[in-house]
């Protein structure tokens, strides 16, 4: 029994000379990698327009079903979310929504400080989610590659000019 006590004292005592792991959070914030998955944001494309086209792929990829998007359509044919809601009380930060997003609109950022006192404050709507910038994917604009022309939009890269139906040349 004596041997046991001495061994325990030795084991614990030997830690006195090891480096300390305690993080002084929240006084000192942790440095997280850029691809750390925490709070979700909606980004904008290079012209400042909303990237989200309300395709609902994030909602369907979400394993806890905490995303709800309602589609609306602008005058020029552009789809956008009329409402975009994420329930962070349910979100498990798996990042599937980001992977599913065809427009790079939905992105997970390293800001993990989401705790709140009321569950209702954890339901984030579009105003809470939408940021001013392009996030992690600079330069991408979905409507350049979609192949569905917006009203008044000139043919983009990879699109021919509108077909002349009356032309018979091969």
């Amino acid at each position, binding site marked *: 029994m004596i041997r046991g006590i001495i061994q325990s004292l030795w084991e614990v005592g030997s830690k006195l000379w090891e480096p300390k792991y305690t993080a002084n959070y929240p006084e000192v914030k942790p440095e997280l990698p850029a691809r750390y998955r925490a709070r979700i944001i909606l980004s904008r494309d290079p012209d400042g327009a909303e990237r989200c*086209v309300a*395709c*609902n*792929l994030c*909602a*369907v990829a*979400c394993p*806890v*079903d*905490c*995303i*709800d*998007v*309602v*589609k609306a*359509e602008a005058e020029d044919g552009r*789809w956008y979310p009329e409402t975009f*809601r*994420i*329930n962070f*009380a*349910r979100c498990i930060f798996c990042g599937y929504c980001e992977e599913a997003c*065809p*427009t790079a609109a939905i992105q997970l950022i390293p800001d993990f400080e989401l705790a709140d006192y009321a*569950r*209702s404050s*954890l*339901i984030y709507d579009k105003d809470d989610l939408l940021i001013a910038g392009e996030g992690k994917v600079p330069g991408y604009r*979905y409507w350049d*590659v*979609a*192949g*569905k*022309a917006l009203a008044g939009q000139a*043919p983009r890269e*990879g*699109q*021919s*000019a*509108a*077909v*002349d*139906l009356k*032309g*018979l040349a*091969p």
Partner: protein
Amino acid sequence: MSDTPKLRIDGREVTFRPGVDLLTACIEAGVMVPHFCWHGALGSVGACRLCAVTVTENGRDRIEMSCMTPATDGMEIKLRDPESEDFRARVIEWLMVNHPHDCAVCEAGGACHLQDMTVATGHHARRARFPKRTHRNQDLGPLLTHEMNRCIACYRCTRFYRGYAGGRDLDVFGAHDNVYFGRAEDGVLESPFAGNLAEVCPTGVFNDKGWSKGYARPWDMMHSPSVCNGCSVGCNLTISERHGRIRRVENRYHGAINGFFLCDRGRFGPLWVESDARLATPLIRGAEVTPNAALAAAREVIAQGAIGIASPRASLEANYALRRLVGAERFFAGVPDAEAAQDAAIVAALASHPIASLKDIETADAALVLGEDLTGHAPRAALALRQTTRAAERALAAEKGVPHWLDNAVRVAGEGRRAAVTLVTPLADALDGVAARALRRDADAVAAFGRAVAAALRGEAAQDDARAVAAELAAAEAPVVIAGAGLGVAGTVEAAAEVVAALPKARLALFPAEANSLGLALMGVAGGLEAAAQARGARPVIALETDLEGTPLAAAQVVALEALATATTAGAQVALPVASFAEAAGTFVNHEGRAQRAFAARPDGPPAAWRVLSALGGLWDADARVDDVLARLAEDLPVLAGAAEAAPGSGTKPCAARAPRRYSGRTADDLAGRVPEGMPPVDPDGGLSWSMEGAQGAAVDPARSSGPAEDGLHSPSAACLAQAYVGGPLKGGDPGVRVIRPGMELARTPDAPAHPAEGLRVIPLHDPFAAHPSDRAGAPLAERAGRPVMRLHPEDAAALGLSEGALATVAGARLPVVCDAGLPRGHVGLPAALSRRVPARIDAAHITPEDVQ
């Protein structure tokens, strides 16, 4: 060797129906060969090259297009052969060269045949480095969107629109790989069947515009099986809902009725349920009150006894509850006496002759239409009759050895022959162009012509054209005779029955005015509105889904049960909102006497009418279900006992799931941890759940199924897999039960009133897009509905002092006058809904000109 021919698919031996193509044989054997241009109702054209399979003959393999190859006995084919698999993958890759990368902003995404086929072949990365072809899109009106960049040139749209539905204004333009499917210029697609393009198109060129405005992905909606109540045909619908809003109506395949297609009234009409024209709250003399106050007031009004006005549009359950509440002697139909008598005559005629379903009409080889404007009155039946007109073409092609599924070849080989379809109508008809004989007769002479044909068939003397028609009908293998309430004259139904009685092979199709006209007639009414006015005395009236404005009962004290806000609900003593057909389970009897169950398509609608009536009269316990009502109905009225079997009862386990497995967003609003908030609503009447819990897809019986859901196949193009054979009944039998049987005991027939002999003969003008005021309340259809007008022969109009465009008042309605030389003299054409409110002849003095403001 046995009689049934066999072939081997990937080593598995299967039997097939003789005479079909290889693709059909495979699909009927449960093997989904990838395809685009082939369609169960439109046949094969070989445009897309996707259905390639490897055929092994004498030990050598070759690739063939399965839709263009007849299935022969002893054939050996391989689907999982690397060569044909690679071939199909290349075809997809080639189709995707020009297809945009826009599934994210395409309504079809998630229910797209092209998407399914692309995923199935494994094509995921584009190798072509050329610009994609771009087309200019058109505005095709309020019903459909147009996005030509998505087109893969399968020609399904033009084959349906022009070949199947007889439309003229959609065509294919351009040359080589620049083909363009659209109109010659922007404009509304004219055909009343244009909405089907949204389902026929295997990708997203044509989409439902109304759905796009209130969009939810197909996997995100609760799909409920329903039955259309736009006319008496009773087409099966799937109504889709999300977040308490009905968003889309799609075709639900029924082998004997609607098959693959709906009319636009059926597809877009039910959306009125979401309009502002609903009666939203209970009213007492037009003032909003609480439901309990309204119920108490209604009880007080009817305490001394009331008469009941039943509705031919309301379900059997609602009408039966009213009948129980007021008693059989005070139970009247909310239609004129003449129509109530005619509905009873239709039941009597159907009970003693072979009945034709829409499928029977489609496969008939001769037809006689007595007085019906089918395109306006029962549009889906007109689409069926269009197929009848091709019977002679099909017969000639078969004689020349052209298989029936080679649609284009049949059209060429058929030499444009028209089947013996005769239309006898007072006005020019939309089907004139395809009928062999279009005869114009005055409204009162139509029945006489029918009787002359019957006389000729019996070998008696008759005029020449009647004898010619009789000879054609007698020579036919499967003739049908069509009549109904569309013309609003007595005698056509009896005349049609007389013709069928004289023809041993013939079948009879009769179209009453409304979705449940026959259900009400089978229940038996004491008469129509005029009889009700006489029998009323000083009693109050309970009006079930009937607008009494302009009827003899307009002055009565009324308790109105309505889904739609009407003049009656505004002035009623008490007005109680009830569920529309899309918000409560209910049973409807269609034109062939088939009882079909529609289920609630929204969990939060107003209470079913029978529940309100039950609360008024204490008829059933508060927790009673539809089953209890139907059980009591079967006891009371054994003729309608079959109605209870129209669908499995509400206690059936497992229940069927309305939501697809991947229904999303369920926890976006809940406050994690508080369970009751996340509980799905319970449907007491359905045997269907408001969640994804329960049986899905093929595990559900046809009556509760909202369409097939096979793994990997999500589009309407997969409907064939649920059919016993392509175009045949559903696996498990077509839903619904025929309640009209030969020799059945009939309810009391109300007396037909005598018509005034003088005055202008009223001809109902049917509008394919607007049969009922509710059709004008729903946004998409209201834009397509024609302007209600009064039509007069120019000379009659001049005699009345009216000119084109002048306003005239008749029976309280102000209508602009249209002078139409096509209308026979001595007739007046009125909107169909109004024509049912006025006598068959109206005195010219009752048409009063008004000064144009």
